């Protein structure tokens, strides 16, 4: 029996080395992250099985040495024998003690470094790595990891059972590690299966979980090392090897957890809870319960709930067998039947021409001259320069091509109408639709004139683009209906938008100038009309007055003739004096009374009358 345990240790070591190499090769072959983590576990298993095997050999040597010493003592007599130093008598025991005192702690420290460092480096690698498992290699990798798991399980289980026997404690660390490695390999196989089916990130998550487990193991080794310093050394009491991980033991033999839990419950409740019928049934049927749970898990894949707004394609052995609308549906369990869901009723949107920028979109005002997204410039025809550019332009070394640039932002809304066409015709239908739509926009703009696009062509462009995108999507069998193509944001690039705005300003100024001139013209014309009206009316009044006055004078004259003929001189005098009196009534009059008619009288008519009168010499009688 004592020989067997060493052999078992050696078999465990050999198996660990072989499976470690094989697993590492499969990991490189499949590029599996969880496989890499499993390889690290297997590498640690190699170290632990080696350490335990080496310690077994030392104990075996010690045992043989003890037997030899006992035989010698019987032959030579005890007294003579014990005159020698103890170290000379028991070199193998001395070697084992030295190994336990120095090498085992050193090995534990090495384990801590490898586990901690491995967890850290693996975690970083897992997060940086973007490789995926090659689909064609997944199935073979899965099968190989499953085989490794099976082999390790059988060997580990056997060794764990033997390790329970008295005196075989050193077999336990390696056996537990092998059993735990079996579960880890099984986890890797499940992760690869997940990648192969619908759970692409399963590999990543299993790798992360194994990193956490490695970190836990490192922490445990550290705590064990610290506690070892303060552990009371009782002579004759066999210590647990420092590299014998309790975490690994728990993982490898979860039933030990059950026993521990039972003991805890017994202590807490004060009676043997572990002996109750419920606890016993639970303990007896745990594998069956786990199997039933697994069966329920598989059966749960027989029911599918398709969400509102979705349609699902049901594949039976990879062949599409039905299209499922929203609601509950039954199907054969995975992997016989599989379901792929698509948002068919929901209106989906993408934008051609710009990449939305959350910061810029916070602004409430959208101006041509301000960037409101990561905009792209599209080429557009320019009728004016296309004809002008035929001249030889030698003014600049870099001649501007006869095109213009424009910025567009065109939201396209669509709905999946044929889910099978959407799923099976194109590998990436959404990207294909976006490409097709972008191409239609590029082609449309390249055949347009910049001025037209910014003005009247815009009105018909949306409808034309919608029908062209629909046609292109149909040509690609995308199975979609284009619902809306928006052209609300077509404008010159930000760099020249300000000049376009200034043109608008200049146009408005032109209109303003014209309007001012029209206003002035209206004023001028109105005034001239008034003047004309006034002139003609004055003339008319003149005419009337003239005619009327002439008629009146004629009538007056007719009446004056008899009076004149009756007394011509009197009439004249009378008329003269009457007219004189009337006419000179308000006039300033100077009457010169002088006898000497040759006198020269000078009157300064600019002087005031008072001064003038003062200076006039009034003749005295």
């Amino acid at each position, binding site marked *: 029996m004592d020989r067997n345990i060493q052999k078992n240790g050696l078999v465990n070591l050999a198996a660990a080395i072989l499976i470690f190499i094989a697993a590492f090769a499969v990991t490189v072959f499949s590029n599996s992250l969880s496989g890499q983590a499993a390889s690290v576990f297997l590498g640690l298993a190699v170290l632990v099985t080696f350490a335990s095997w080496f310690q077994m050999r030392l104990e075996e040597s010690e045992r043989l040495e003890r037997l030899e010493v006992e035989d010698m003592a019987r032959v030579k007599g005890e007294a003579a024998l014990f005159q020698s130093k103890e170290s000379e008598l028991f070199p193998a025991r001395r070697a084992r003690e030295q190994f336990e005192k120095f090498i085992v702690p050193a090995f534990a420290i090495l384990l801590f470094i490898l586990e901690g460092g491995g967890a850290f480096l693996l975690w970083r690698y897992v997060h940086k790595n973007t490789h995926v498992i090659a689909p*064609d290699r997944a199935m073979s990798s899965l*099968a190989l990891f499953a085989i490794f798991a099976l082999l390790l399980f059988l060997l580990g289980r056997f060794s764990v059972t033997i390790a329970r026997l008295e005196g075989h404690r050193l077999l336990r660390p390696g056996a537990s590690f092998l059993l735990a490695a079996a579960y880890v390999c099984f986890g890797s196989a499940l992760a690869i299966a997940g990648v192969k089916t619908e759970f692409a990130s399963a590999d990543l998550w299993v790798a992360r979980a194994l990193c956490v487990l490695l970190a836990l193991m490192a922490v445990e080794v550290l705590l064990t090392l610290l506690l070892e310093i303060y552990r009371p050394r009782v002579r004759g009491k066999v210590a647990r090897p420092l590299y014998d991980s309790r975490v690994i033991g728990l993982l490898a033999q979860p039933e030990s957890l059950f026993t521990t839990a039972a003991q805890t419950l017994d202590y807490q409740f004060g009676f043997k809870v572990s002996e109750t019928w419920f606890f016993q049934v639970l303990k007896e049927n745990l*594998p069956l319960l786990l*199997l039933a749970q697994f069966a329920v898990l598989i059966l749960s894949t027989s029911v599918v709930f398709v969400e509102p707004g979705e349609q699902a394609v049901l594949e039976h*052995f*990879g062949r599409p067998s039905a299209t499922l609308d929203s609601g509950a549906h039954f199907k054969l369990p995975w992997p016989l039947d599989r379901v792929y869901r698509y948002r068919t009723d929901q209106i989906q949107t993408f934008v051609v021409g710009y990449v939305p920028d959350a910061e810029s979109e916070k602004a409430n005002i959208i101006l041509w001259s301000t960037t409101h997204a990561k905009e792209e*410039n599209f*080429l557009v*025809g320019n*009728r004016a*320069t296309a004809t002008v550019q035929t001249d030889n332009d030698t003014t600049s070394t*870099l001649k*501007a*091509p*006869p*095109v213009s640039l424009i910025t567009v932002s065109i939201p396209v809304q669509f709905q999946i109408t044929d889910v099978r066409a959407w799923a099976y015709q194109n*590998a*990436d239908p959404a*990207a*294909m639709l976006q*490409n*097709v739509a972008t191409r239609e926009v*590029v*082609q449309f703009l*390249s*055949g347009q004139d910049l001025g037209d696009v910014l003005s009247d062509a815009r009105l018909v462009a949306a409808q034309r683009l919608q029908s062209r995108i629909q046609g292109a999507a149909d*040509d*690609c069998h995308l199975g979609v209906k284009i619902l809306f193509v928006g052209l609300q944001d077509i404008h010159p690039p930000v760099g*020249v938008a300000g*000049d376009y705005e200034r*043109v608008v300003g*200049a146009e408005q100024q*032109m209109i303003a100038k*014209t309007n*001012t*001139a*029209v206003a002035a*013209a209206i004023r001028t014309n109105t005034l*001239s009309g008034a*003047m004309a009206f*006034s*002139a*003609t009316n*004055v003339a008319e009044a003149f*005419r009337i*007055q*003239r*005619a009327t006055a*002439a008629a009146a004078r004629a009538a007056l*004259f*007719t009446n*004056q003739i008899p009076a004149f003929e009756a007394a011509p001189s009197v009439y004249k005098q009378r008329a*003269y*004096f009457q*007219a004189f009196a009337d006419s000179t009534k308000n*006039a300033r*009059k*100077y009457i010169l*009374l*002088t006898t000497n008619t040759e006198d020269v009288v000078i009157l300064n008519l600019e002087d005031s009358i008072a001064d003038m009168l003062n200076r006039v010499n009034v003749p005295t009688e």
Partner: protein
Amino acid sequence: MKRNLITFAIGAMLVVVFALLLFVFQVRQSEVAVVTTFGKPVATHTNAGAYFKLPWPIQKVYKFDQRIQNFEDKYSENYTRDNVTLLASVYVGWRISDPSRFLLTIRNGSMVDAQQKLEGILRSAKIAVIASNELSSLVNPDPQQLKFEEIENKIKATVQAQLATNNIGMSVEFLGFKKIGLPDSVTQTVFDRMKSERQQWISKYDSEGNAEAQKIRSAAERQAAETVAQAELQANQIRAAGEAEAAKTFTVFQQNPELANFLLRIDALQKSLNQKSTLVFDERTAPFDLFTHLPTNSPAK
């Protein structure tokens, strides 16, 4: 016994699962599978379903996506026949037309490798076709001169022909320009030209505004002058008519010309005198002659 039965059931189930994994494989509707025996392609499955195979390493299954793959090449610089540098990016819808050839000619049937090969062919074809056309063939408001689709078809035909020559089991279903543009330096010159065009419009509107205003004002003034002149003419005619009408009464004055002349003088006298007139008379002027011949009440000498 019960425990053994469960263990046996689990073991049997695992054996069945492993056997299925080793001997059976599924092909989806979107996939095509090539089965190789010791590395040599022996069967191609294009229809969806479950198929039998011998376990690895005897037989191996390579699955490919048989749907149309979407590929975009880099936004790269090209030279047109009229010496314009043009940036262009092309998207391609391609698919695996011959899975066995694809597996043999592309390393491990890798889609990434396949697209790298396609990119090389596509870029070469794109450069060649663009170089044989002028920019105005790609961008032109005149539909007669625009050859956008023709250029796309030429690139597609060139790529298709090269793929056929290489016999790598790939075919191009459709091809189109994803983006065309200009390098930054050329873009800036286009911006400058666009700005100068806008400046032309600004000047045009400015001068047109002034000219139009001037025209409107001068037209209004001309019209006003014409209106006033017409009115003057009409007024003169009216005055003349008044004069003519007044002249008709002159015959009445002819009955006694002496009186008429006297009255005219009286009338003229009245009109010629107004408030501000200053008159200087001597004592002989009637009625002021009364000052000299007025009788007095003083006693006779």
